[in-house]
């Protein structure tokens, strides 16, 4: 991904909009006041960082459990020659939000969110049926930390 180096103002803007995005009528103006730039300048830079891929998303992150959804971490041992097929089958489900190839015997790791336990089980059974590959489901018992914002 070709990228310009971020300057000090870019970084100041990113730190503000990561952790303290203003819930206000003119949020980019508020950010501008905090970092010492005009609203237009903030808008221009945010747009640029969006287009260049520095910013992946801008908006709300929901607590899936509070919305009545349930989630699990899944792992599977997939032979290299079947990876493409397996990953396509897994990824076509909208509830699969993250999927990583990892260096382990269990080489495919994905997270699955669904509206109920039953639906979770059904989706995993469906993937296993379609691919013949067994999937481990490792639901969380307790969350100690989720930190998604990084100082830049």
């Amino acid at each position, binding site marked *: 991904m070709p*990228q310009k180096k*971020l300057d000090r103002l870019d970084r100041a803007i*990113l730190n503000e*909009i*990561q*952790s303290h*995005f203003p*819930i*206000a*009528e*003119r949020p*980019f*103006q508020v950010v501008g006041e905090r970092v010492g730039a005009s*609203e237009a300048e903030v*808008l221009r830079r945010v*747009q640029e960082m*969006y287009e260049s891929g*520095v*910013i*992946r*998303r*801008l*908006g*709300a*992150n*929901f*607590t*899936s459990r*509070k*919305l009545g*959804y349930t989630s699990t*971490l899944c792992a599977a041992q997939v032979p290299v020659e079947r990876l493409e097929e397996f*990953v396509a089958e*897994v*990824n076509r*489900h*909208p*509830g*699969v*939000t993250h*999927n*990583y*190839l*990892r*260096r*382990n015997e269990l080489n*495919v*790791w994905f997270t699955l969110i669904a509206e109920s336990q039953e639906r979770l089980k059904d989706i995993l059974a469906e993937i296993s049926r379609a691919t013949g590959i067994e999937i481990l*489901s*490792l*639901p969380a*018992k*307790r*969350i*100690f*930390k989720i*930190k*998604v*914002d990084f100082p*830049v």
Partner: protein
Amino acid sequence: MLTDLEKKTILVLQRDLDVTPRPFLELAQHLEVTEAELLDAIRSLLAKGFIRRFGATLRHQLSGFDANAMVVWQVPEEAVNAIGEKLARYREVTHCYAREPAPDWPYNLYTMIHARTAEEVKQLAARMALEVGLSAYQILFSDAELKKTTMRYFHPEP
């Protein structure tokens, strides 16, 4: 527990916010409420914890922390809480969860680590192991991101 407006707000907030001077105005008009009412609903969803965080999500690679690994730990069940809390305190640990183990996969504590290099991840994991007195752990480096997206809640599957 959720007002009608809060429910509708959850639906419209699933898209990314527009990068325009008044991004909330258009959403409010869509919901046929005032901008102030929408802003109040968002603040209320944040206060009640339905929205975990509101803002920008960056690509980790950009922050220079591009060695990403999941470290899984086998912890005696009675020590999971104490050790989980300890490991969560590390700055490099972005996620820390206790999970059910599975047959042939005895690991019950999971930490996501972001560091600058694979070597740093290994050294950090060794330091963490020493601190909590565990030797049964594995480092699973990520070789490729196969999917990364945002969940769309309350939408019928296509």
